[in-house]
């Protein structure tokens, strides 16, 4: 995939994640150095996967531990959340907002694609299999929260043609 476009998507995702956490979760997050890794097993206990289709094909994956997700959803609702289903649902909605916001930003530079509803995967180390992984550009972006916990946003994408 064109490196410039790939980096534009990465930057849009980073900016969207920061905006969503600031606006909805009232929490500052700091992006750390992105890295590449082999394989795509889930990096944390709760993982949201959104598929991208259109000019580009791929996925955005948001992985966070239960405690990090619980803190984020509790902040968002202004109430301590204990229910696991609610924590998973909230993590999916965070994934949805981050990808949706990045999508809007990218449409301004002519990069149009559709997004799926988030698919949630539970358990660290679960295999995430993709049919279109071959030939895709991949990156993993760690984010540090105010309480020093870390979650990851991952992108793999390639041109549709």
């Amino acid at each position, binding site marked *: 995939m064109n490196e410039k476009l790939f980096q534009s998507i990465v930057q849009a995702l980073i900016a969207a994640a920061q905006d969503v956490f600031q606006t*909805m979760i009232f929490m500052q997050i700091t992006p750390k150095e992105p890295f590449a890794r082999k394989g795509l097993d889930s990096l944390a206990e709760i993982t949201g996967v959104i598929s991208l289709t259109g000019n580009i094909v791929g996925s955005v994956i948001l992985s966070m531990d239960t405690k990090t997700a619980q803190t984020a959803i509790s902040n968002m609702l202004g109430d301590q959340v204990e229910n696991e289903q609610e924590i998973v649902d909230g993590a999916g909605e965070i994934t949805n907002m981050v990808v949706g916001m990045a999508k809007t930003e990218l449409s301004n530079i002519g990069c149009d694609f559709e997004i799926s509803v988030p698919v949630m995967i539970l358990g660290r180390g679960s295999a995430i299999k993709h049919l279109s992984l071959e030939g895709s550009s991949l990156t993993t972006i760690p984010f540090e929260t105010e309480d020093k916990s870390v979650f990851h946003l991952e992108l793999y994408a390639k041109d549709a043609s």
Partner: protein
Amino acid sequence: MSLKVMVVDDSMVMRKLVIKGLKQIGVDVDVVEASDGKDALKKLDPKTVQLIISDWNMPQMDGLTFVKKIKEAKYKKHIPIIMLTTEGSMAKFEEALNCGVDDYITKPFTPDKLKKKIDKVMGLA
């Protein structure tokens, strides 16, 4: 202001967030919750619901199909609909308005933004 609102979103956290936002802006809210368009059509009582706030991307029946069905129905089309969605491009905005959506809010949202849109569609602005 007292308002009977239907909130349609497949995320229960997002539904809670909308309800929290409504309370924060001073709405004495009576809520009907639905998890997608199909569920909303089943639960909608057009005699009592005064406003619908609906997501776009949902399983079973998406928000746009739901809006079209409401706006085609003689006894339901008067209900104002605000679409609350991650779909923020101009093309999507126009598509939604063409289908009969009264106004549009992109996620993430603030209670202030919600208030402005509600005031506008309810004729209070």
